[in-house]
């Protein structure tokens, strides 16, 4: 199971549609302060089901919709799609690919699609669970948070081992 590409449109500062192709190995994202690098990583965790607006630096989930700039008006909707490559015969695999899409509208409610078909969040969660693609506590380290593994409570460290078990 591999990430193949991410399509973002209207998510935070990615007002215009952007496609990111992932290869194997290491993909580096670079650029000046405030240009959108962390926003891009948040689009990944968001499309894979992140439910906490706070962990996306927002107050409500609506905060991830493009809010306008000096030149541009705010949008009414934000969206991202993650396309995954799988082995043939993989559950939900549509010709070797799985597409997970999430939309959020003003008002904050999210819509999920699996290979284009509207589904409930639960189905996305089950899929992520089965594929091992669900965001484990140790698969995303947010900016400034690397130290938390060490300074966190003993029970939080236990959770890391439990997730790996």
């Amino acid at each position, binding site marked *: 199971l591999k990430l193949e590409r991410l399509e973002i449109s209207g998510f935070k500062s990615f007002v215009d549609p952007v496609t*990111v192709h992932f290869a*194997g190995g290491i993909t*580096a994202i670079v650029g000046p302060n405030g240009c959108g690098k962390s926003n891009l990583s948040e689009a990944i*965790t968001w499309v894979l089901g992140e439910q906490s607006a706070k962990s996306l630096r927002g107050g409500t989930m609506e905060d991830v919709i493009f809010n306008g700039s000096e030149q541009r008006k705010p949008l009414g909707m934000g969206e991202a799609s993650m396309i995954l490559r799988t082995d043939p015969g993989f559950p939900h695999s549509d010709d070797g690919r799985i597409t997970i899409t999430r939309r959020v509208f003003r008002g904050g409610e999210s819509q999920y699609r699996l290979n284009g078909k509207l589904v409930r969040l639960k189905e996305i969660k089950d899929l992520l669970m089965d594929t091992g*693609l669900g965001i484990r506590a140790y698969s995303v*380290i947010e*900016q400034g948070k*690397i130290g938390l593994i060490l300074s966190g409570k003993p029970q939080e460290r*236990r959770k890391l081992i439990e997730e790996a078990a």
Partner: protein
Amino acid sequence: SAERFATTFVEVNKAFGETFARLFRGGEAEMRLLDDEDPLESGIEILARPPGKRLQNLMLMSGGEKALTAIALLFALFKSKPSPFCILDEVDAPLDDVNTTRFVDVLRDMSDSTQFIVITHNKLTMAVAGTLYGVTMEEKGVSKLVSVEMEEIQPEEPRRATA
């Protein structure tokens, strides 16, 4: 199950000690159950001792040492049970150049079994990436993606000193 937790704990602990010793070029690190009478519920504490130094309260370590220790534990978890992908947002920010080089060495090995997405300002980290994307805001407030070649990265005044 209690047994699977115990097996995982031992496995991650071994990888943690080895990865720490590799990143620090010596020293030792391990996890311990706070209460080994209660393995089903007990929290976990971390002990780490950089080479040449004495074992102390973890919090007395430096910013860079803490980051490197956390990276060692992170990679140990991955060795035990790889995630398909891993996102690292500026984890190299507190590291000096020597430690950044040690970090990307291990990162490169880990990337055989895991797709890494690494956000960084550090050219040493960029240099080991197979794919390099630049995010820009030519129009203010609007993010755009561009592909970047390593040669394009301006060789400006070096930033991090090895005094």
